[in-house]
């Protein structure tokens, strides 16, 4: 089970004078639990945008299941099983969570172009939507308009949408930001518990979560891959410490400084 599912070679993205992604080569193996970390503005979100086709790459190639998908439109990549979440919620404001999920499920099952029968006609679709609602604690707000939901619930819906299309490859961009502290672990456990052949790429700044989730990590700095390895290797890497993790004692330094000052 170690063949490469998603891979990119020599990916470059320039915005005017800024090179946000600089010659990135990355392989995601089948069943991977892979984390992508790096300083703010390192190009993590941009990389996801390139992989999913939201942005067009300036240079480079992307392959999914061995096929070149560089030129494909976003929705075509989704049809091949690659699904993402967004760092900033992207929801359907006027729909209810139930409608949203039913729509995603029916689109995923190839009913998106059906115009003659109502959305709820297919019992299988409704069932799957209901199951997702329960799994993501959204059942009690299932029939409220999404724009009226509390932030935490919206965040959950954001992730539920991604899982509703049964992804083969899942790209998560800071999925738990804004989720209540207590629910974060549970959420990532849901993700971790996906079938073993689903590959996951996670971006996250909460290191406790990252290290408990990832089997492999890639560090991105200034648009370039700095290093890749197991969590242990990354944690021990001095360069990573210098640019990203810090030495873990800054807070204490700050505290001491503060205590000194306030006596």
């Amino acid at each position, binding site marked *: 089970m170690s063949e490469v599912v998603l891979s990119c070679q020599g990916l470059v993205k320039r915005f005017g004078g800024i090179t946000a992604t600089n010659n990135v080569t990355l392989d995601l193996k089948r069943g991977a639990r892979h984390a992508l970390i790096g300083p703010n503005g390192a190009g993590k979100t941009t990389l996801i945008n390139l992989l999913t086709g939201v942005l067009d790459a300036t240079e480079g190639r992307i392959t999914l299941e061995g096929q070149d998908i560089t030129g494909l439109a976003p929705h075509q990549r989704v049809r091949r099983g690659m699904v993402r979440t967004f760092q900033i919620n992207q929801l359907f404001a006027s729909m209810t969570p139930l409608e949203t999920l039913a729509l995603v499920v029916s689109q995923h099952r190839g009913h998106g172009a059906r*115009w003659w029968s109502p*959305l709820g006609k297919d019992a299988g679709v409704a069932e799957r939507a209901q199951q997702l609602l329960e799994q993501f604690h959204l059942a009690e707000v299932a029939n409220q308009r999404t724009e009226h939901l509390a932030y935490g619930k919206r965040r959950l819906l954001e992730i539920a949408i991604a899982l509703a299309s049964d992804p083969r490859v899942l790209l998560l961009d800071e999925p738990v930001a804004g989720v209540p502290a207590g629910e974060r672990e549970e959420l990532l456990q849901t993700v971790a518990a996906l079938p073993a052949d689903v590959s996951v790429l996670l971006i996250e700044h909460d290191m406790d979560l990252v290290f408990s989730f990832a089997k492999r990590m890639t560090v991105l700095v200034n648009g370039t891959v700095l290093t890749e390895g197991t969590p242990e290797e990354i944690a021990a890497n001095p360069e990573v410490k210098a640019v990203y993790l810090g030495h873990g004692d800054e807070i204490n330094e700050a505290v001491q400084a503060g205590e000194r000052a306030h006596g």
Partner: protein
Amino acid sequence: MIPAQTNLLRNARMKPWEPVVWLLLFAAPTLFPSHAAIVNEVAIVGLFAVSLDLVLGYTGIVSLGHAAFFGMGAYTAALFCKHVMPDPHLGLLAGIATATVLGFLASFTILRGTDLTRLMVTLGIALILFELANKLDWLTGGMDGIQGLMFSPVLGKFEFDLAGRTAAYYSLTVLLLVFLLARRIVHSPFGATLKAIRDNRLRAMAIGIPVHSRLVAVYTVAAAMAGAAGALFTQTSGFASIDVFEFHRSADVMLMVVIGGVGWLYGGVLGAVVFKLMQDFLSQITPQYWTFWLGLFLVVLVLVGRDRLLKPWTWFRRGQA
């Protein structure tokens, strides 16, 4: 049936008041025979408005050039009558067909850009068609249009009468059929993908919706409906005049949809009823200055909101902070 499915299907079910609305509409030409002409006009613009609502309300695409399709339907029906045969049914189909083709071609111009660009591009297309209809006067009769058309009876039986009863029932029937079709579309998975595109195009792509082909599809369907409205216009009035392509036609229909409320098929019909009746009523009272009162109505409507319009005592209550 699991509750989720019941909930999903609830929206698509016919509400008890819906048949009542249609019964009233269909009773109108008989109850008020002297107003059959205006019923006919309402039915036609209502159909036109439903077509616009499909793109504007359900898909979020602004179009200020919807008259292009209306006009296409109108002229096709006229030319069909003049040069092919006076049968209204086939003429209607012909009008729908050409409008569909035009809509399909035009749909490629609305795929990209902002609301403002789409507004202007669609408007530009209608204006160019207007100029074309003016220039090609050997075909279209130029500024004077195509006049004095005589259509054969509807269903081979009902002559178009002077009072406009046949016309009213003919238009109402077509409106009903198209409305039922539109209703089906908006409650289907296809309709849901349209709403998704309207709400958040980025996310719609990210769940695998082929945004462009959806837009092309819905724009083409809407154009076909507008073409039907245009063909009815020609057939019930006996002429096609160049102003079917005019800016004010596109603008009026947009006003109607917004007055009635977007993203709600009845909004178009309601807006058409309100707008036309108000226009008719006001211009009877003051043929010179009725636009002032119509304008005032629009301003008040927006300022107090649709829901409070009929409750004047709430108008001056302060809005919340």
